[in-house]
C-alpha cells in the first residue's frame, strides 16, 4: 500500500515507515508564537521546568493580533514576550512584518517535508509550502519550546482533486468555500486534506495558501499541496532547499476522495454563522452591508488586493459602507504600494491600515455593533467573531468584497 503526502513526511522525519493512525513523538522543525497565544505558551514552558528553548533559531515570534498595542494589558503581554526573546536569543519580528502565517511563508520558514507547529489554528496555511503544519494550543507549545518535539496522531488524508479553469472573477476562495460547504465544519476532524489536480498545479502560491489556510474550517489538522515547481520557485531566494519528491503514491489510501470541476463554479458567500454555509453569490445578492474587510491571512496578499482593485476599476466605494483594507504583511503592503493600489483604494474611500489581523478576530479595531453586517475576505463568520454577537459576518473573495463595497450591498463581481 502506498503512502499519502502526510505519511511520507512523518516517515521521512521519523526515519522509518509511519502510517496514518500511529501516535509518534515527532521532532519539530519550526514553532510559531504570537502576541495572543505566546504569553501562555511561555508561562507553560516555565511551569514545565523549561530554562532554555530547544533551539532559538527554530522559534518564530511576532506580534500581529493587537498591534500596535491597543491596551495596557496588550502592551504588557508584548513586553513579556520581548524579554523572553531577548533572554533566549530568539529573533523577534515584533510588530514590523505583519500577519504570522504570511510572514512564515515569505521568510521561507516553512519548507517541503518539514513539521511545523504554530499556536494559532490557521498554521495549516504552511501546507502550501509542502510542509505538514498544524495549529496547537499554548500548553502543547510550552512542551514544544522545551523539548522540540510533540505527540502527533498521524492523520488519515482526504484527497481533493480539482480540474478546470476558474471563470472570470472566480478563484481559490470560492473553491475553498465550496469545498468547506461539502465537507462540513467537522467533516475533516483529525484528518488532513491533500489538494491536487490540474487546477492546483496551475494555481499560484497565494491561492494555495488561501485553500490550505481554511482546512481548519473543516476541522482538519492540516491542508497540504504536494510541492512542485511552483513551490520551489516561490522558495527560491527565501530558503535553500533541494527539490525532492513528496507526491502521494498512486496507491495511497485515503479516507475520502473528492473531485471538483471549477469551470462553472460561481462566486461563493458563506452566510452567518458558520463557514460551511456557503451559497452562490446570487442567493444573497442585494443584502445591505455596513462594513467590508479585505485582508487577513486568508486573503490579504498582493494578488488579493490586485483582484479587488481590478473590480474597483475607476469606481468609488459606497458612502454607506466602511471599507477597511489591510495588506497581510509589510512585503505585500510594499508591493501594493508600488503598484499604485494603495492610492487607488484610499482615493476610492477605503481605510488602509498597517499589516495586522485587523477586524478578523474581533479583538482590536473595526468591531461591529449590534445589528450590523460585515462582508469579509477573512476565514470565520462565527457569531460575535468581529464584535457584537448580534452582528452578522458574511465571507467571500476579494473580488466579491470589492464589487459589494461599490454598491453597499452584496454584489456578484461578474456583473460589475
Amino acid at each position, binding site marked *: 500500500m502506498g503512502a499519502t503526502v502526510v505519511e511520507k513526511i512523518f516517515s521521512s*522525519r*521519523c*526515519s*522509518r515507515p509511519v502510517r496514518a493512525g500511529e*501516535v*509518534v*513523538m*515527532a*521532532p519539530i522543525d519550526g514553532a510559531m508564537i504570537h502576541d*495572543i*497565544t505566546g*504569553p*501562555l505558551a511561555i*508561562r*507553560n514552558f516555565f*511551569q*514545565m521546568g523549561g530554562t532554555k528553548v*530547544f533551539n532559538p533559531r527554530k522559534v518564530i515570534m511576532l506580534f500581529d*493580533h*493587537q498591534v500596535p498595542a491597543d*491596551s495596557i*494589558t*496588550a502592551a504588557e*503581554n508584548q513586553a513579556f514576550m520581548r524579554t523572553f526573546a531577548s533572554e533566549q536569543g530568539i529573533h523577534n519580528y515584533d510588530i514590523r512584518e505583519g500577519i504570522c502565517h504570511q510572514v512564515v511563508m515569505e521568510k521561507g520558514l516553512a519548507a517541503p517535508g518539514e513539521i511545523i507547529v504554530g*499556536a*494559532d*489554528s490557521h*498554521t495549516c496555511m504552511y501546507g502550501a509550502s509542502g510542509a505538514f503544519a498544524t*495549529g*496547537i*494550543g*499554548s*500548553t*502543547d507549545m*510550552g*512542551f514544544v519550546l*522545551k*523539548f*522540540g*518535539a510533540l*505527540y502527533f496522531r498521524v492523520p488519515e488524508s482526504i484527497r481533493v482533486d480539482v480540474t478546470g479553469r476558474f471563470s472570470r472573477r472566480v478563484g481559490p476562495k470560492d473553491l475553498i468555500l465550496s469545498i468547506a460547504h461539502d465537507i462540513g*465544519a*467537522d467533516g475533516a*476532524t*483529525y484528518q488532513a486534506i491533500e489538494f491536487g489536480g490540474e487546477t492546483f498545479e496551475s494555481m499560484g502560491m497565494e491561492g494555495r495558501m488561501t485553500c490550505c489556510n481554511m482546512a*481548519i474550517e473543516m*476541522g482538519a*489538522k492540516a491542508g497540504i499541496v504536494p510541492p512542485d515547481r511552483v513551490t520551489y520557485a516561490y522558495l527560491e531566494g527565501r530558503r535553500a532547499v533541494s527539490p525532492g519528491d513528496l507526491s502521494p503514491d498512486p496507491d495511497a489510501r485515503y479516507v475520502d476522495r473528492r473531485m471538483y470541476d471549477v469551470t462553472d463554479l460561481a462566486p461563493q458567500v458563506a452566510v452567518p454563522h*458558520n463557514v460551511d454555509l456557503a451559497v452562490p453569490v446570487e442567493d444573497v445578492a442585494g443584502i445591505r452591508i455596513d462594513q467590508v474587510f479585505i485582508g487577513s491571512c486568508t486573503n490579504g496578499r498582493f494578488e488579493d488586493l490586485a483582484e479587488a482593485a481590478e473590480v474597483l476599476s475607476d469606481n468609488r466605494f459606497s458612502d454607506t459602507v466602511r471599507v477597511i483594507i489591510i495588506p497581510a504583511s509589510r512585503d505585500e503592503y510594499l508591493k501594493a504600494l508600488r503598484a499604485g493600489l494603495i492610492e487607488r483604494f484610499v482615493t476610492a474611500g477605503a481605510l488602509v491600515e498597517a499589516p495586522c489581523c485587523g477586524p478578523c*478576530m*474581533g*479583538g482590536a479595531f473595526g*468591531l461591529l455593533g449590534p445589528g450590523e453586517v460585515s462582508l469579509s475576505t477573512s476565514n*470565520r463568520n*462565527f*457569531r*460575535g*467573531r468581529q464584535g457584537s*454577537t*448580534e452582528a452578522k459576518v458574511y465571507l467571500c473573495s476579494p473580488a466579491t468584497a470589492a464589487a459589494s463595497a461599490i454598491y453597499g450591498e452584496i454584489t456578484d463581481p461578474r456583473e460589475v
Partner: protein
Amino acid sequence: MRVWKFSDNVDTDAIIPGRYLIHNDPCVLARHAFEGTRSEFAGQVREGDVIVAGRNFGCGSSREHAPLALTGAGIRIIIARSFARIFYRNAVNVGILPLVCEQADEILDGAEIAVNINAGFVETDGKRYPIEPVPGFMQSIISAGGLVGYARNLEEIETCTGSQA
C-alpha cells in the same frame, strides 16, 4: 452536578470572545465565558457543573483561553458527541476531561448528571449513556494532572527518530 446543554459547532469565539484574550487568568476569563451567546452561564455556573454538547465542540481558534475560561468557571468535564481536535488536546492539557458520548443530544439542559468514568457511562434522569474510553496516550497526561505536570517530571524525551530531545 448540573448540565449546561449546548448544540453543535460551539466555537471558541463563543466560549471566550477575542477581545478578552489579553487576559491569561482563568478566573478573569471565566467572567466572560459565553458572553453574548449564553450570558447567564458566567453568573450561574457552579464548581463541578458539566457541559454537554452536540458535534464539533470547541471548533475554530486554537485559543487555550477557551478551556481555561471553563476551568475558571469550575468545569472539569465536558461531554459531547464529538470535539474539535485542537480544543480536545487543549482541554486535556489544562485538566478538563473531554468525554465522547454518541447520545449526548438526549441529555437535557439543567438535568442532574453523574459521571462514572471507570464504568464508562454517564447517568441522568434514571438513564445511562455509554461514553467512549479516553485514548491511552491521553490517559497518562490526565493522570499527571495535565501536560504541565507530565512534562515537569521529564528531563528529556525520546522522539520517533530515536534521538533524545
